[in-house]
């Protein structure tokens, strides 16, 4: 008898050994779909058990009503305007400050504590503070979004910059490559993964921030509208807005960030 210790299977053989239905059932897409189905069933069960949890039909009714009243697009337009500015600012400032902290030990010593302080202050505090400072209007949600998101971007980018290959940094300095080019061609591409991670944090934390600021700011927007239903004790209306918030985040994350990171890492795919 001969023992084959390990036999490697070819991709063709693996494909042949599993029928198509099995492959489809174990695909990433099937797993994602399964989650949504399970979550939906769970919701129906909870709504059946507890009276204060609105079930899917009443939430869908409220959603349709909100669309019909024309509340959805106007409020979301306000929210996106604030969110967009806040996130763009936090990403721009976050990358800049993150790179500076990563490159200069002095900047690090100076800025490390304020970043930690920023990380530890929850979005709801910023929402209160900015409403006190700036009153009602666009400013307080924009500033809340910015302040909530920016420490996460800074932290991620700074971490990435510190990990940039020592060998490549030495190479650059032995050739006397100017700082600006070094940042553009060496540091930023090297930290691209961290920038995407930072951006992801910015989107999610910023979304939190903008909704909270609108909730307390009383100046329109999706967060404000959710509060309106909450105050009116209409849980179905409130839940309808929660569904919208969740949907927006999923779409932003999957569509935008996925595509962006695929573009940024094209060089990596080219080498496989």
């Amino acid at each position, binding site marked *: 008898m001969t023992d084959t210790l390990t036999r490697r299977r070819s991709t063709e053989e693996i494909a042949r050994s599993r029928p198509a239905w099995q492959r489809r059932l174990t695909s990433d897409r099937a797993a994602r779909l399964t989650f949504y189905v399970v979550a939906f069933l769970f919701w129906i069960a909870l709504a059946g058990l507890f009276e204060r949890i609105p079930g899917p039909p009443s939430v869908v009714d409220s959603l349709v009503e909100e669309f019909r009243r024309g509340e959805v697009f106007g409020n979301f337009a306000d929210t996106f305007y604030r969110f967009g500015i806040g996130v763009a600012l936090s990403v721009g400032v976050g990358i800049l400050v993150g790179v500076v902290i990563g490159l200069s030990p002095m900047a690090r010593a100076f800025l490390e504590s304020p970043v930690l302080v920023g990380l530890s202050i929850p979005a709801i505090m910023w929402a209160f503070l900015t409403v006190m400072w700036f009153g009602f209007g666009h400013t307080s949600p924009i500033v809340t979004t910015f302040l909530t998101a920016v420490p996460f971007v800074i932290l991620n980018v700074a971490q990435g910059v510190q990990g940039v290959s020592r*060998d*490549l940094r030495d*190479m650059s300095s032995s*050739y006397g490559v100017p700082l600006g080019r070094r940042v553009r061609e*060496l540091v930023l591409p090297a930290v691209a993964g961290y920038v995407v991670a930072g951006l992801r944090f910015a989107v999610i934390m910023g979304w939190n921030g903008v909704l909270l600021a609108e909730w307390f700011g009383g100046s329109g927007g999706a967060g404000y509208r959710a509060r309106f239903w909450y105050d009116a004790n209409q849980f179905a209306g409130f839940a309808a807005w929660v569904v919208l918030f969740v949907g927006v985040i999923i779409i932003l994350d999957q569509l935008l960030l996925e595509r962006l990171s695929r573009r940024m890492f094209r060089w990596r795919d080219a*080498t496989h």
Partner: protein
Amino acid sequence: MAVLTVNDLCKTFGAGTARSNRVLDHISFDVRGQTFVSVVGPSGCGKSTLLNIISGVETHTSGDVSVTSDEGRPARLGYVFQDPRLLPWRTVRKNMLYVQDKDDDQARRRVSTYLDMVGLGQHGDFFPGQLSGGMQQRVGIARAFAVEPDLLIMDEPFSHLDAITARGLRAQLQDIWAQSRKTVVFVTHDVVEAVELSDRIIVLQPGGRIFEDIPIDLPRPRRQSDPAVATLQAEVLARLEKMKAITPQAATAV
């Protein structure tokens, strides 16, 4: 005129601490323009440290190091490392432009010229990960030549390659050098390689002193098969053996 002047150079890592380690000990030498100088010596004798000090990547403890250019501008350096050290996210051509003073037509022309010279004229738009190790190392060599350096330093550029690839690249380096006549400081622990390439060999001993400074007066191009080359290689090897006998640390190091 001397392009590189090293005068009474000392380097101590961790000076003033318990782990203080003197790596270079009162080193002095000059390298004249258009000469090819090799630095050989056992592992750990401070060869890479010397190059890093010359290139400004590492600071020295005392003494003087200066590189001069004859055109009244700051001297330009080319550095070929033991490994290719290319930006993985930039194409070969962009990698070479990265270290150029300016990204202008002249720079692009130089990049193309030297890519052709190392036989990679067709690979300018490849990413480093799409090339073999030997091809990447050739890009590193072309990159260094393409900055038209006043001083070109090379740290065991062939030591990570297989013998056949290394031999091909050595021949190529000789050709390119014959055409461009750059001033080169070349580190290796391969005496055979040093004799084949150099006008002069500086032998470092453990503890970082210069043991010997041997002129190599052979006509170029030199080929392995030439008996004069083989004779001199044997002679230099014999002198290194003598050094090992005198400095006991070296016996274990090579």
